[in-house]
């Protein structure tokens, strides 16, 4: 279609009402205007807390990475299960996500913006201006939630949106449904590989099937813990990650040699909290995941024998390794280990044991194939083939190299009869922001505007309306 032609009225169902879509996740919070193709505002859900001048200060957004302030500690308002724990801070982080980039600063009161300053004695006292300007008073808000969000959390969410942010209309949609919408499907089996959780959500006609929703903690953070376990048991020497902020200079060294770097040291009273270091280590690990880690493409497991009779591990060994350089200059080529760190997503026995890790060793029921199986067992048999033919992969951790191939093989092996079709957008941002994009599509549809919970309805029915309307 020629882009200069207006779309046909019959096929264009959009009607944009400048709604804001807010997709809070465990690692990042995405916000943007509905109708756009990527979130304008992407901030970490983590926030920093430190004391300065005797009072507690908070920092949000990308600023948390930048300065190792004394005593800076990093927190996350969302717990490992993906449910909000600290509502006050969640509200602040979310608010920052859209006020920093989207709603911006309103034109201030002309009396206070400094341009019309008049001597203070002349200021009329009755001109006291109400200062509680609410940030969202002219944008409808679409928020997302995981499929297993408890009722209390949902009610709390609408309460914040309506009372604290004063949004005229609100809707709470499930991430799974939105990810399916982003791939243009109303019925799908959504495999969401997030930072703290992996979840399988069966969707029928745009509604989740609650009995089929499955989730387990084998997300991106779990993979990080596996990589840490691998580093501890590394063969020439255990690898420790030293984040960039602790290094003042480094020299190039040969692969596998001890790093030659000058380290920064912070005196005990100036040093940031351990959680800050963990956050920055996590950044390096993220880089490692992007550059090195690879999912064994299948069709059989890494520990199994390949079709030629050679074990898959030996096959993996023959493929060239991938080098990685750590912030302190240490570098090494990673061979078959790079497959092992993610193998436990599919095969619980392949997990690298690490007693110090905060993650318990995975059970077979937590692996992706078993989750899919359990999820399908929870839905009606008639729609199972259809769901298998519409598997949607989303979530940032699903970008692991070779992940979709492996998933496809695992599903085909588990269900040799029906047709299995895995849909995964190739575009990185479409994969990372799948649920946000779905929300953007949904909130800009003309037919959707009858679904909003308006302020009036909220005032009439109370927060419980969210259970009735956002099903």
């Amino acid at each position, binding site marked *: 279609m020629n882009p200069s032609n207006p779309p046909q009225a019959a096929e264009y*169902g959009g009607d944009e*009402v400048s709604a804001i879509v807010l997709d809070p996740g465990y690692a990042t919070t995405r916000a943007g205007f509905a109708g756009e193709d990527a979130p304008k505002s992407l901030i970490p859900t983590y926030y920093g807390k430190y004391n300065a001048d005797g009072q507690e200060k908070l920092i949000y957004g990308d600023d948390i990475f930048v300065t190792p302030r004394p005593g800076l500690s990093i927190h996350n308002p969302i717990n490992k299960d993906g449910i909000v724990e600290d509502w006050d801070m969640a509200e602040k982080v979310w608010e920052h996500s859209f006020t920093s980039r989207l709603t911006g600063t309103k034109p201030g009161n002309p009396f206070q913006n400094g341009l019309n300053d008049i001597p203070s004695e002349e200021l009329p006292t009755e001109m006291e201006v109400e200062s509680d300007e609410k940030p969202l008073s002219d944008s409808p808000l679409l928020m997302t939630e995981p499929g297993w969000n408890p009722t209390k959390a949902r009610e709390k969410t609408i309460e914040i949106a309506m009372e604290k942010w004063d949004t005229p209309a609100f809707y709470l949609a499930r991430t799974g449904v939105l990810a399916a919408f982003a791939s243009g499907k109303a019925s799908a089996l959504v495999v969401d590989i997030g930072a703290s959780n992996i979840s399988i959500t069966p969707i029928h*006609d745009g509604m989740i*099937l*609650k009995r089929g929703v499955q989730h387990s903690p084998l997300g991106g953070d779990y993979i990080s813990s596996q990589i840490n376990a691998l580093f501890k048991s590394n063969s020439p020497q255990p690898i420790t990650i030293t984040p960039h902020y602790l290094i003042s200079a480094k020299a190039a060294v040969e692969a596998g040699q001890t790093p030659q770097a000058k380290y920064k040291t912070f005196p005990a009273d100036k040093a940031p909290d351990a959680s800050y270091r963990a956050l920055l280590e996590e950044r390096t690990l993220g880089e490692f995941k992007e550059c090195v880690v690879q999912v064994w493409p299948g069709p059989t497991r890494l520990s199994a024998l390949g079709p030629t009779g050679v074990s898959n591990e030996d096959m993996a060994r023959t493929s060239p390794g991938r080098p990685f350089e750590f912030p302190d200059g240490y570098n090494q080529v990673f061979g078959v280990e790079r497959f092992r760190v993610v193998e436990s997503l599919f095969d619980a026995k392949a997990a690298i044991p690490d007693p110090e890790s905060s993650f318990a060793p995975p059970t077979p029921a937590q692996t992706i194939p078993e989750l899919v199986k359990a999820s399908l067992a929870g839905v009606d048999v008639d729609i199972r083939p259809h769901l298998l033919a519409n598997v949607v992969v989303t979530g940032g951790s699903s970008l692991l190299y070779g992940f979709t191939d492996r998933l496809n093989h695992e599903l085909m092996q588990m269900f040799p009869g029906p047709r299995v079709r895995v849909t995964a957008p190739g575009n990185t941002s479409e994969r990372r922001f799948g649920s946000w994009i779905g929300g953007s599509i949904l909130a800009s549809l003309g037919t959707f505007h009858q679904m*909003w919970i308006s302020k*009036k309805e909220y005032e009439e029915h109370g927060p419980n309306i969210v259970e009735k309307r956002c099903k």
Partner: protein
Amino acid sequence: MAAAADVRDMLDLPAEGQPRPHKKQKVVEKRPEGITRELYALLGERAPPIAINENKYKGRPKWMNKLRVRPWSMAPFTNNARSDGLVLHHWQRKHESARPPVAAPAPEGSQMEVDQPKEEAKDDAPKPSEQEYAFAKYNIKPRLPQRYTDEDYARHLKSEDWSREETDYLVDLVTEYDIRWVVIADRYDYQPPMDTEPDANAIVPAKQFRTMEQMKARYYYVAATMLSLEHPPSEMSEAEFELHEKMLKFDPDRERDRKELAALQLNRTADEVREEAMLLEELKRITSNEQSFITERRELYSRLEVPISVGNTTMYQSSAGLSQLLQTLLQADKSKKRRSILGDGAIPSPAGQTPTHAGGLGRAETPVTQAANKKGSMASRDTQQNVRTLTPAEEARYGVQHHERVTAGVNFRSDRAQRLTQAKSNVQTQKLASALSELEIPVRLFMPTERVCKDFEKLIQSVNLLLDARKVSEKVESEIRVLEAAKAERERKYREAAGIPEPEHPHPQVKTEAEDGDAVVLDSSAGSAQAQSTNENPATQGHAHGAEGNHKRSASVLSGASESNKRQRR
């Protein structure tokens, strides 16, 4: 300049300086606008190597200037699909001045009045546009039968298994999820009311898991009942009646069995799937082969029904005839009229393309094809010999034949068999045909295999032999009869002369073929004698006729034969 002057010198042309300055003058006048006159003069008489062209912003075409700008505005709107009158804002083309904002309140509908107070509460925002929201029309709900009343329930819908409360819950859920059973079954979570009365608790079973089939059965029963209460089945429209029937006939057990089967089908192992795929592939192969077999067989049959061509090839023996044939062939090729000899759209066979038929000519072959055929057959024989020799049993099995002499071209076995039934004379042909029909053998063989043809050939030979034998025997018999008649005549005359009464005479001996010479001699006298007897004594003739009554046909044949005999004699 100097070069030009030299050239003029050499060619004895007058040195003309005049026209050039004149031209320069012109160029100066055409000086581009962007350059001042002084600057341009500095360029001297040499034109700049780069053309100076002005890059001017073209702007919009002139006709566009007449168009008016159609502004957009952030306009509020309400959605009729909502009951709460939520006002949202979107960008909208501003209406032309046909409806000035001052006139807006006048045509305002009554429904807008409802929204009015809320808007005032905010600020005096412009009113939502009067036209209906375009997407409101997509707000549709499935039509469900009306809800039962208490009385209806008590009279028609009571059930052992389902309490009133649970039925209410189910119908609510169905309405809420628009009969999406998958979702309904997923969300179904009925909590029996915790009554204080102990009886109620005893009646209502503790939380019970309902399958989708149970829910469907209950709901369909309720809906069908309500539908028939609305309209008795006799008054229903066709669609309604169909729906009613469908809902009444819902069988939860069968549905459950079906789902069990579906689950089994879904959870097949890889081996089972592979086996099924293999079987399906096999089936496909068989059916496709069957199809091709059928078409081949049909082609064969239709080929058998081709009328036998009765032309001859003599006209193509000369070179002129051959060239004519070539012409016909080319023409037939050109016109591409592939008239199939298979009447009903069967695959055009190569035989169908032979021009001999199309041209209505006899079965003639071009020399080229003859040669090709010969070569092909030779080649095939060579390869056969090279490969291996077959035992007679195998030869019979594979239908391998060795020909003494391979005739040119293609011919049908049935044709050869047919030719056997054609005797030299028409009479003989008729006789053969009658003999075959007596034996109930069709003139055209049904299945002219090699063996059948051989047997047919043998049969025809023996029929011919028998016919010959009969002919001879009839001839001999007739001669005997004539001679006997002559002898009787003679004896009668003799007796008349002697006056002796008639004695009984033994029959004379039948003559053998060896006495043929005598028979011929006798025949001449017999001929005259017969002529006499036919003329003089019809009674005797009649007697002879009557004696041979059961061989009537043979008798007529006999007489015909004797006549032809006589003709030959003369």
